[in-house]
């Protein structure tokens, strides 16, 4: 059986009831799972000897402005052994949005989660160092949310005075 079927079968076997959706658009496999099982799934995918998804490439989030489950966190993980990139998603419906951090499983997720906190306002529980990444520390908004205008809110960032 090929790689996709192998992954789907293994995941369904262990996490049958938490898996919400499995999709395959343009040849990319994507598994959506309930948000409290994300760490267990990550550990399983990393430590299983056939799969070995040891590299976490990216952690980000999508803001569906008008849906009830407003945010979805997206994880891209890669396995050197199978040479396959897998996408994991998990919907968040509480307000303010929180989810467990996966930086205990993959160390590289540290900075990606900081960037997601900065841009979307999703708090990662148990993160070792949750600070803003790009915007200055005192900034009050989260820029990539759909209710923040692209031109910014005037006065939210200070500018030095022009004095000749």
């Amino acid at each position, binding site marked *: 059986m090929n790689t996709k079927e192998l992954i789907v079968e293994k995941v369904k076997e262990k996490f049958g009831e938490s898996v919400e959706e499995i999709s395959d658009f343009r040849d990319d496999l994507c598994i959506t799972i309930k948000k409290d099982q994300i760490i267990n799934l990550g550990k399983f995918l990393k430590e299983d000897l056939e799969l070995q998804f040891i590299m976490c490439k990216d952690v980000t989030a999508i803001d569906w402005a008008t849906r009830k489950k407003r945010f979805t966190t997206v994880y891209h993980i890669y396995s050197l052994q199978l040479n396959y990139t897998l996408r994991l998603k998990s919907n968040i419906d509480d307000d303010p949005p929180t989810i467990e951090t996966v930086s205990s499983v993959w160390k*590289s997720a540290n900075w990606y989660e900081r960037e997601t906190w900065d841009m979307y306002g999703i708090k990662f529980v148990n993160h070792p160092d949750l600070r803003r*990444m790009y915007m200055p520390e005192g900034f009050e908004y989260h820029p990539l949310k759909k209710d923040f205008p692209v031109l910014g809110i005037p006065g939210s960032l200070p500018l030095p005075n022009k004095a000749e």
Partner: protein
Amino acid sequence: MDRIKQIYNDEKLLKKLQEDQNLTIEDVLENEMVINMGPQHPATHGVLRLVLRLDGETVVEIVPELGYLHRGYEKMAENMSYIEFIPHTDRLDYTGTMCNNVGYVLAVEKLAGIEAPKRAQYIRMIVSELSRIAAHLVAIGTFAMDVGAVTMVMWTFREREKVNSIFDRIAGARFTTSYTRIGGVASDIDDRSIAEIVQFLAELEPALVEMDKLVLSNRIFIDRLEGIGILPKEDAIALGVTGPNLRASGVEYDVRRAKPYLFYNEIDFKIPTFSQGDCLARYFQRGDEVRESIKILYQCLDKIPQGEVIANDPKKVLSHKTEIYSKMEELIHDFMIINFGINPPVGDTYFSVENPKGELGFYIVSNGSGQPWKLKIHSPSFCNLQAVSQLCKGAMFSDVVAIIGSLDPVMGEADK
């Protein structure tokens, strides 16, 4: 010792120190120093701020701070159509610019289901490899300049100017070209450009030999780089480092081999790897990759077929200018594509290419309209900078400059 006696005998100074912060004299002389290697610095390759805690000359802890060049790419992408974003992708890795264009356009083509003709794919490969040579030349030149060999920057920029004039002839601009389009490339390359490329490659190989002779027999250069900033294989994978830094630590992962795009599966090239993982290995890695790129370019120039350079799909791909000006159908399609955008199907894709700095990936979420709902850029410099805290712990202060130079971050990409 005399200085300490002098301080002890100076009553006023002693009293001031003691009442200031309740310090004893031993505390003052043995405290650690917090130093700011600010955003504006000749050796930080752009606007990167490093806060270091030093114990004498040894670095105890280092914290990088980004965000000084955050221009809001991802937010802007949600408000403009796919084709309007192409000039923005140029400015991501601004040393090797054509690769970013190619990566973005390939991601959109994957999402929308368009395929570019064969000649366009070969042209894209040629300009990608030329950008890779240009970017590695900048990296090698500025790295050697940081370590002390200032002549290297002049020599590598002299070679890079030839690449710039080739791009000028092909695309009209020296480096931020926006040359690729969704469905192909903007215009064809003529025989004069191909002759210039062949001449450039012939002059590049002896120039590389000259540059190697300049620095590699220099005792100081080798001592400053050998054994510094060693990144072991498991740490490189765990921290998410990509590109030449990963290959210099022993992991043989190159997107052109793992998930071949364009026509890389028909070209014969090696992937150089080194196992030491120190700064010297990363320096050699980039030199070897330039040599491999020269081989790839010769093969592409041999194999390039004749044909169209833009796909024939009127609803999604812009047609030729002459037809837009003279025929009605094409005019209507042009109006729809420019104003409302191509409408790819609902869904999300991730596509990555091998940038000179590492793996550049685009994650596009589309809701069926002409503008993306979300565009995430997986930039290699952002991932490489995560390794700085681990690499610099325990190193000397002057090694920090060498390590950052060898990781080669580009802040336009890391800060998006």
